[in-house]
């Protein structure tokens, strides 16, 4: 009791913004996790970002089951990450959506900005919100169908998640930037429009989340039906209506708990489960690509490709140019700026398969 009084007295002396953050510890912790994921994802190189896409895992499954092959740009890490996301979803629900997804985070931040700008939130009628949320399953079916037909990452062409993280590269399709822009504009008026109505990964996780072991419980047993948790819910649910939130659209953000008036709030289990799950995902996301990259040796250092020159192969493999020429049976005067694949233009027997056998294996 005395500690609470002291704490309140201390907080009154703090600036308003710091007071708000400390007064909403749960919200601040979640924001910190979101920022960490966002910065980490921005810093990842283009090729690696494909590896941390759980949707890429779903897309890859369509080919892996039929042919045992990966779709270009995906790898075993997509499966591991998809597996981790699914495991967490089975245990704690779609924590990925509420805590990890950078696109979800940015929508949250845009919405927060719009509150600062005093832009009024559009209230979507309940039945329309429910009906529109079914669109996610349509998008999911479209993605799986298009991926199975084309055997490429078709969704990348539309994906605002991917556009967000790499809009400055030439890799991103204009259409996905347009969808991202529309999503962010809409986020000024509605909480998380992409997550609510269009996200195909969200569709998958929401169905699995339905059978999750832990569900979001009503923030307090002393609920006074004030509606604060509904206002705080970024997907427009009503946590106050039942003892636990069974709606498949719940993204386990945990925002309903801190929104509950302090005198009424008692239950912190929701937040702890989501937080621990999010930390687990955070670790998996940024260690798996590094581990699989090192173990497979397919991405960076030590690699040679068809278009690698003899000079570059020497640097990458850490052996002298002279040694490479000897290993390949080339004369010492052979031009070392020749690409490995082009050696067979001069020496018919020194094919790419032969070069790989000699230099890599």
């Amino acid at each position: 009791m005395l500690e609470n009084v002291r704490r309140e007295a201390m907080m009154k002396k703090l600036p308003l913004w710091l007071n708000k953050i400390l007064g909403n510890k749960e919200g601040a912790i979640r924001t910190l996790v979101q920022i960490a994921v966002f910065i980490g994802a921005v810093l990842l190189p283009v090729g690696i970002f494909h590896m941390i896409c759980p949707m890429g895992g779903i897309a890859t499954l369509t080919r892996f089951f039929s042919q045992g092959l990966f779709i270009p740009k995906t790898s075993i890490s997509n499966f591991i990450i998809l597996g981790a996301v699914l495991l967490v979803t089975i245990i704690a629900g779609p924590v990925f959506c509420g805590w990890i997804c950078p696109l979800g985070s940015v929508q949250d931040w845009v919405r927060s900005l719009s509150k600062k700008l005093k832009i009024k939130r559009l209230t979507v009628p309940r039945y329309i919100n429910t009906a529109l949320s079914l669109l996610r399953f349509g998008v999911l079916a479209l993605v799986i169908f298009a991926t199975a037909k084309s055997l490429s990452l078709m969704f990348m062409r539309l994906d605002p998640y991917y556009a967000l993280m790499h809009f400055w590269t030439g890799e991103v399709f204009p259409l996905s930037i347009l969808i991202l822009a529309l999503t962010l504009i809409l986020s000024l008026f509605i909480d998380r429009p992409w997550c609510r109505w269009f996200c195909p990964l969200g569709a998958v996780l929401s169905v699995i989340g339905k059978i999750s072991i832990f569900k979001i419980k009503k923030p307090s047993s002393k609920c006074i039906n004030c509606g604060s948790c509904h206002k705080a819910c970024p997907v427009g649910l009503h946590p106050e209506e039942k003892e636990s939130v069974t709606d498949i659209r719940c993204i386990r953000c945990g925002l309903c708990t801190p929104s509950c008036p302090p005198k009424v709030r008692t239950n912190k289990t929701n937040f702890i489960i989501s937080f621990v799950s999010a930390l687990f995902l955070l670790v998996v996301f940024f260690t798996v690509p590094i581990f699989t990259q090192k173990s497979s040796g397919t991405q960076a250092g030590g690699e040679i490709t068809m278009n690698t020159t003899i000079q570059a192969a020497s640097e990458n493999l850490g052996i002298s140019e002279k040694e490479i020429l000897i290993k390949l049976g080339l004369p010492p005067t052979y031009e070392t700026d020749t690409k490995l694949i082009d050696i067979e233009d001069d020496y018919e027997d020194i094919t790419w398969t032969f070069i790989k056998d000699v230099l890599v294996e």
Partner: protein
Amino acid sequence: MNNTMARRIFMAALMVTLGAAAAFACEMSFTLEGQSFTSMSIQPGSTVKLSEGQSYKLTVEFNEDHRNCKVPADETLFLLNGEKWRVNKETQALLLKNVIEWDAVTNTKNVIVLEFTASVKGEQVIQIVRECSKGGYDEEITFVVE
């Protein structure tokens, strides 16, 4: 225009956009024409049966759908069993009859027709490779000549 109408128009526009996007072709598509059949679409990674001594036309369509694709179509590599697929190279199991030269149909669409004869029985693997810093393209088609 009220809010409901504006929202409806927006949603309709977004759905049309999503639909249009689904019409994008894959990065590369392959069609095979033979003497005993008119044409068939081939999925990369698949296995196709050919008859020994028969001639075929493999049409490859490549769409440069990235904004800044820096690797020209000409730099696409075609390998047969791990070595460059060359025109009139008698020792290769699929005897290529024409030079590999892309036809730029539009700014972003390139097509090539590869005419070849299945001259040797056995499993022959065509590998199509485009190397770039953004993942590139690397696929195989296996032809089983019987």
